[in-house]
Structures are given as C-alpha cells and as structure tokens.
C-alpha cells in the first residue's frame, strides 16, 4: 500500500500560495529581527552585544509599528486572508498586533534595564548550578545573557501569528513559537536561581500538557470537519448530522489548551509559581502579552468556528469564568507575596475578560479588546514598580516589607496605589472603563447573573488591593525595610508609559474604544 503513491500528486507542481506581504509585514519584521538577533549573539563581540541587541529590539518594535500603521492606512475594512487562508489580517488582528507591539515595548524597556539590579535581571550563564561557586562569580561579574532579546522577539512574533491564525494548525505552530522562548526566559533570573529554574520546568511541563490537549482537540475537530480551517469547522457545525461528540470533545480539548495560556482557572495552577520565579520583567511580558495573544486566539476561535453552537457550550464557559473570578479573588486575599498576589489577580482578571469574550457580539469583541489593552499596560507598570522595591537580596516582594512605604517614597507609593486602584476597577482608571465595557456587553447579551457575580468578585478582589494600600500608607515602616531604587531611564519610561495609558484610557477612552470596535473577524 505504501508503494501505491499517486504519481500525479507528486508531479503536479505545487502552486505557491500568494502572500500579501504588506499585510503581514509587522510579524515578518519581528521574526526577521529575531533571527538577526541570533546572528548578533554569534558574531558580535561580547562587550557590544547588549547595546546592539537593545538597539535592534527597540528599532524592530518601532519598525513593526511603522509597518502596521502604513498598512492600516489602506487596509480593507473587511480584512484579508493570506498564505492560502492560514492567516486572517482583519481589524481585531491588527488591533491586537498594535497592542502587542506597544506592550512589548514596555516589557523590553524593563528587560533592558541594568541600573536597578546592577548588570540586569538575567544570569550570564543559565546553566550555572544554583549555589555553586560559579554562581557567586557570575553575580560579581555582572554580565547578562543577551539572548533574552531575540527570545523576546521570537515569542512576540509567535503571539502575533497566534492571534491572526485562521486555521488550527497555524495556531498550534504559533502557540509553540510563542511558548518555547517563554519557557527559557522564565529560567534566566540572576537571583533566586532555584525558584527561577523551578518556574521554567513547571511552565514547560504544564505547557507541554496544554499543547498536547490543544493538539488532541485539533485532531478530533479535523475528524469532525475534515479541515483545520476555522471557517470550515463553522460550516461543518451548521446543520449537519455528524457526531457532536467529535465536535464538542475536540472543542473542549482545544479550549483547555487556550485557557491554559490565558491562565484562566481551573487551568491556572502554573501561574503563581511562574510569576514568582521568573525575572520580574519577563513576568511583566508574560502577564501582559501572553494574555493578549491567548484571548485574541480565544475570541477568534469562539467567534469564527463555534458561534453557531454557542448555546451548547456557553454554560460551560460561564462556569469556567465564575470559577476563575472567584478563585483569583479569594485566593489572592491569602497571599503574602506581591508577585503572587498579582498572579492571582491576573487569574481573576482572566475570568472578567472571559465574561466579555463569551458574549460573542460586536460590543463583546470591542470590550474584550479594550480590556486587554488596559490590563496589559497596568500590568507592565505594576511589575515595573515591583522591581524597584529591593533589599540586599534582590526584590523585596514579601508584603510585610512594603509596610510604611509611603513615608519613604511617596511617589512610588502613589503610583502603585493608582495602579492597584486601576486593577480594582475604580473610576477614572482604565480598569474601571474596561470592566464597564465588558460587563455592559455581557449584560446586553443576557448574562445578567454572570455580571452580578463578576461584580461581587471584583469587590472581593478589591480587598487585597486595598490591603496593600493600607500597608503602604497606614502602617509604620519596619526598621530594616527595603530601599526604593532610583530607576534608570528604561524602567522610568516603562512605568510612565503604563501609568499614562492607564490614566488616559480611564478619563478619555473614546478613541481606543472606537478603534477596538472598528470591525469584526474576517472569515
């Protein structure tokens, strides 16, 4: 049987797919620069690597943004598909790309900082055994592994492809492209090597599981629809007598893989450990960008492939959203570490975003997109502030060390309070507007009870944000408390960017809301 190859298939020339280079210029720039970055690692002398990598990365982000803006000026409103329909470059995809580039800029600024932790947050040689003599030597030398920059770009390119992927196979490949660099980056912390390596291993193992789930779901859906294209699955699901078991089994497994990346409970177990163990700038990158990419993909999959069957699966996602909101809100209260607390906060926020994502209406889409932008910038700035509070052993992330911080550093405490209020959803911050647009979309779509539960979860979550405010303002500082580092230009820029966007989107959300509501998914 193996010998009976159909010769015509071999001899017929394969038609090369037409490529709309203008449409995919932005991810091409990013991925191309990532390859260039790898070459830099190989050929550029060690002392000038850092400067060249930072320059290249920042230029890449600007160049990609430029390519995006140039394309946007004459992009068709309905969107285009290219590379034989594997990528759909429509308004939501373009919006998400812009968001990812802007958030990555903030994250890269944090990653590139070498003033707060002398020599940077990254170990010079990731293979050093924790506690070995060479580790101490490394700490004294203060070098840094500059591979983190091309890794960031690879992850970013994967994310951009992920939220534009129009078929499941492309989605899977980009999922791996975005995940593998992240697994590595988690393990690169200069301090607390053991925790960092543990985070990397945990993230990798659980991530591999999630990928397997995704792949299995893909296989079942292929069996159902004989195609991996999202639109073909939608066609197949509309009015056929094929087995629903394949469809819903496949969808469930697929969505588990996606929800894992978005750290929605009950698929969140990796989140707290990985957030704590990773170098904080990498946590910021993950917390902001991965969430954007994952929810971009979730929105696309649910809207394009499964909208027709939404009555069957929506109840399950309701339950997932409720679990995520309450688990994040309640477990966050018991945390004593700032990064862990923010990790649980991100789980609660994932639940809120999911509330908007399952509305599957125009308002739901634009609300969710707005939420992702707002949340991303707040997260970048939050982690930026967390890097600044330090003692001799690195970041002082235990909450008790933050007591009375307002007296030592009123500015830092003020900024952090503002960010916490944004996370809690107090008016005049982007956090409030994003909750408002998401919940109003859900309410319009008849999800009233879910919205009320979401609001109760918001109040519970607010209690732990307030606890930090209480600590910073109303408590006396400890005698041997941490110091607040004076941030260098990079970190200052990142925090300022995040805080400004949080404020502007809170006071004047109209422009971004209009962009987010500019169009729907292309088929």
């Amino acid at each position, binding site marked *: 049987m193996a010998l009976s190859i159909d010769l015509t298939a071999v001899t017929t020339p394969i038609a090369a797919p037409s490529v709309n280079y203008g449409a995919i210029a932005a991810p091409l720039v990013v991925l191309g620069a990532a390859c260039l970055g790898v070459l830099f690692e190989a050929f550029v002398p060690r002392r000038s690597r850092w400067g060249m990598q930072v320059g290249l990365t920042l230029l890449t982000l600007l160049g990609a943004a430029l390519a995006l803006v140039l394309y946007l000026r004459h992009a068709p409103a309905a969107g285009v598909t290219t590379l034989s329909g594997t990528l759909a470059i429509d308004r939501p995809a373009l919006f998400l790309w812009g968001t990812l580039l802007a958030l990555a800029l903030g994250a890269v600024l944090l990653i590139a900082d070498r003033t707060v932790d002398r020599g940077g947050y990254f170990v010079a040689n990731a293979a050093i055994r924790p506690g070995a003599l060479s580790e101490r030597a490394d700490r004294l030398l203060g070098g840094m592994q500059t591979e983190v920059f091309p890794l960031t770009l690879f992850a970013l390119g994967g994310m951009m492809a992920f939220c534009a992927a129009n078929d499941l196979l492309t989605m899977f490949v980009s999922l791996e492209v975005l995940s593998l660099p992240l697994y590595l980056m988690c393990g690169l912390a200069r301090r607390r090597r053991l925790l960092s390596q543990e985070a990397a291993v945990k993230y990798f193992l659980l991530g591999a599981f999630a990928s397997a789930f995704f792949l299995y779901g893909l296989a079942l859906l292929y069996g159902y629809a004989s195609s991996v294209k999202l639109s073909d699955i939608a066609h197949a699901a509309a009015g056929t007598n094929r087995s629903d078991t394949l469809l819903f089994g496949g969808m469930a497994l697929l969505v588990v893989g996606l929800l894992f990346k978005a750290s929605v409970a009950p698929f969140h177990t990796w989140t707290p450990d990985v957030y704590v163990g990773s170098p904080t700038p990498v946590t910021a990158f993950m917390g902001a960008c991965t969430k954007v990419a994952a929810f971009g993909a979730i929105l696309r999959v649910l809207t394009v492939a499964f909208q027709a069957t939404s009555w069957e699966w929506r109840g399950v996602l309701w339950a997932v959203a409720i679990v995520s909101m309450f688990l994040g809100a309640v477990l966050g209260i018991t945390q004593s570490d700032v990064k862990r607390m923010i990790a649980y906060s991100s789980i609660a926020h994932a639940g809120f975003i999911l509330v908007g994502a399952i509305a599957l209406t125009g308002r739901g889409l634009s609300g969710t997109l707005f939420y992702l932008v707002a949340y991303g910038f707040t997260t970048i700035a939050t982690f930026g502030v967390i890097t600044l509070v330090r003692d001799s052993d690195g970041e002082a992330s235990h909450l008790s060390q933050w007591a009375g911080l307002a007296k030592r550093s009123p500015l830092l405490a003020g900024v952090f309070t503002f960010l916490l209020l944004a996370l809690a959803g107090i*008016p005049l911050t982007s956090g409030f507007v994003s909750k408002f647009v998401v919940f109003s979309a859900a309410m319009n779509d008849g999800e009233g009870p879910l919205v009320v539960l979401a609001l109760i979860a918001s109040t519970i979550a607010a209690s732990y944000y307030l606890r930090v405010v209480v600590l910073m303002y*109303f408590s006396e500082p400890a005698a041997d408390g941490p110091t607040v580092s004076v941030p260098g230009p990079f970190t200052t820029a990142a925090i300022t960017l995040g805080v400004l966007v949080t404020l502007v989107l809170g006071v004047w959300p109209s422009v971004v809301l209009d962009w987010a509501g500019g169009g729907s998914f292309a088929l």
Partner: protein
Amino acid sequence: MTVLHTAVATTPATTSSTGFPVLLALLLLPLVGAVVVSTFRNEPRAAKLVALAFSVIELGLAVVALFVYRTGGARLQFSASADWVPSFGVHISFGMDGIALVMVAMIAFLVPVVLGASWAEKLPEGRSVAGFFALVLTLEALMVGVFAATDVFLFYVLFELMLIPMYFLIGNYGGVNRRYAAVKFFLYSFLGGLLMLASAIGTWSYVQSVTGNGTFDWATLTSVVSHAPLSTQLWLFMGFFFAFAIKAPLVPFHTWLPDATAEAPVGVGVLLVGVLDKVGIYGFLRYNLELYPAASRTLAPLLLVLSVAGVLYGAIVAAGQSDMKRFIAYVSLAHFGFMGIGVFAFTQQGTVGSVSYMVNHSLATGMLLLVVGMIAVRGGGSVRAEDYGGLMKVTPILAGMFFLAGLSTLSLPGTNSFVSEFLVLLGSYQTQPVYTILGTIGMILAALYVLWLYQRVAHGPIRGNALVGLAGGPGAAADPSVGARKVVRDLSGGERWVLAPLVVLILLLGFYPKPLLDVVNPSVTATVQQVSVQEGN
C-alpha cells in the same frame, strides 16, 4: 469632552442652563483649593488658612446659587452637558433641582465648620496637616458633584471616587482601629456601588433596546425606564437599592457606620454622617423612585419594614453604647430609618419632611458630634460616657451647647428638626399609619437616650476618669471632696466661632423654615408625582 452644549434644546420644559457658571465654580473651586493647599506641605498654618478661605468662598458661591435658583422654574437648573464617551451615551452633565441645591448648600456650609473644628486636631505622628485639609476639599468637590450629576454614569463615577478621599481621611488620620474601619467602609460602599453599576448598565441596555439609542442621561432614562414592565423594574431597582441602603444606611447594611464614625476624626465624622450618608436618601428619591416607580410602589412595604427596623434597632442599640461617637452613629441610624419612612410613604408632606430632615439632621447631629469632639479634647481623648460627669459645673458653655445639640437631635419644637419630624409624621400617617406609629416609638426612645446621655455627662457631681485624675496629677487643683480635679477650660474663642453658625441655623430654621421648604417643594412634587402618577400601570 467636546464643546459644551446646553441641554436646553432637547427638553426645554425640565431643564434650564441659567447659572451654570455658578455650579461649575462650585465644582472646581474646592479642587483648585485642594491643589493649592497641598503645596503648603511644610507650613501647616498657611495651609489651614488657605483651605478655610477656599471653603468660605465656596459657601459664598452656594449662597449665590440659592439666590439664582428660581422656585417656580425648571426642574433642573444650572444645567449643562458635554459628551464623554459617545459610543455609550455617557455625558458629563450637571444640574441641580431644589433637593440637590439644599444639599450642596449644606455641604458648603458644613465644610468651613468642619475645617474650623479640625483646626487644632491632633493628627497621628507624621501626618501632614496640608494633606488632611486638601483631602477634605477634594471630598467637598466630589460630594457637590455627586448631588449635581445628572448623568447616571457620571453619578456612579463620582459616587465611587468619593470613597477614596474618605478612605484616606479615616485610614490616615483616624483613631486606633482606623485601618479596619477604613477598609470596611470602603468595601461596603464599593460593593454597593458595583451593584448599582450593574443596574445602571441594565437600565442603559433596556433603554437601548426600546429607543435604539443607549444613553445614561438621567432625564431620558427616567422617561423611558419608568414605563418598563414591573419585572424589569424590580431587578433594576435592586442594584440601586443595595447601593443606597448601604450608604444611607438601612438595617441590616449599616455595620460599617458605627466603626467609621467612631474611628474617623470628629470633623470627618460630621461629613460622613452629615453628607455622605445623605447620598443614600437622596439616591432613593432621585434614582429609585423616579427611575422605577412601579417597583418602588411594589417594594414599598419591604422598604418601610427596613426603615422601621432601622429606627427601632438604632434606638435600642444606642442605649447600650458607652462610646459617645458610636452612640451618635446609632441614633443617626434611627434618624435615617425615619427619613426612609417619610420617603417611602410617597406623600408630599412626608417627602418634604424627609428632605428637610436631611438638612436638619446634618446640622443637629453635626453639632452633637463636634461637641463630643470638644469634650473629648478636654478629657484626654476619651469618648466614653463613663469618663465624664458634672460637666455643667466645669464647662457651662460647652455643656449648654451639648444640651442645645441634644434638643435639636430630639426635635424639640423651636429647633430645626421639629418641623421636619412633624412633616414626616403628618405625611406618612396618611398612607402608612402602622409604620409611622412604630417609627415614632423608636424616635421617642432615641430622644430619651440623648437626654439620658446628656444627663450622665453634664449633670451630677464632677466625676469620671477624664475629669478627675489621681491625687497630685498634673495640673490638679486639690479638692478633697472629689479627689484631684484636672484643670478643664471652657470653650475657646475659636470653638465658639465653630459652633455659633450651627446654633444660629438651628434656631433660625426652627422658627422660620419656609425658605428651606420653598426651595425643596417643587422638586418633591415632581418626584411624588412620578411615583404615583402611573398608578394604572
């Protein structure tokens, strides 16, 4: 935030933009004041004077507003509107009816008094005076905004923002348990606010489905939602109800109030009980009754039961308090319940009574709290009733002020509160005799306890740890019959200036309440009509 356009064009009969600059100034002046005051970080005296100057100018503006207001004019005056988030129909729009106007005037009157009372406040170690005064001015701006907002979304935004300065005022400058009280206050109000947000979104969504245009404009919402089917109205009613029941507060949503009042500095406590809580009653009138009249009528028995429960519970629990601030908080709880009876009886007199009670309660209870604060300053910070006795003999003027505030609190004829209480009784008895009688019993109890407290603190022999120290204590004047008496001075000049305006208003409104009632009357008529007109639905 485009060009300002007045709301006159759309609904000429109900709004008028005359005098909007006055309202704009009322809104912005305290904010400017807060910014200016916060620059005097290292000069506490200058900070206080500047803050007081700003608050007095604000009071002047409020008086101007009272004269600009035309009693027979449009429902909402001083109004103007600008787009904020057009895609959701959110506006920045302000305007005041008579009810809002008297509350704004009340705020403008209380803030200088509160600043004066906080002049010599002993702040906890390391807290800045400028910060305290700047926060009070910020709070003032937000409170004016809450009463003047005519867009439901804007109302919500200001309602939540108002929590932040209050949170810091209690948490930063309060008593021993301030952290607990501040967080409890914040979370309770935040939860209520969020449920209100859910209702507001639901209302918006309903209006969008009916008219095709989503908007948060209060007048438009009122005209559409008030005709919604009862089942819809009931759900939407509940969100606003929880927010205002927590704010007002009604039993069983009240537990934050005694903690917050007891821990807050006295001046802040006056603003809390005198103004912030009134937002609850005001909200019932402006939002619950007008937006959801059918639901209001259906749920009136529930609301009346909660109100009466508040009166009885507040009065009874007050008897068990030894902390005078907590005592006042519980007596206020009874008063809020009584205002609730007036509001939910849906009669003209009852509602006018409740609205004027909102003002008069601020004066009476505000003065009572301030007097307790002044007593506490003399007694080494103690607010426990057992620590005092025979104050009349030591500080006659202070005790006299205590007595006057007490009389006003228990609504003696000739004091301001009498008129309001009488109107509430008169109005509510027509439609709800049983609840009114039960409520009155509670009010009598509350009055009794106020008198009893006064008696314990001010009469009898001089006694109590705060007034009588150990023999040979610092500054002791030996008196063999009672032990060593501490030196306690009567009211200082500054303190007299703080209390004098309150005394004047209490007596003035007691004998001549007509101006207050005239301003309030037309707006109340509109509200009562809105609730009762569609009886046929």
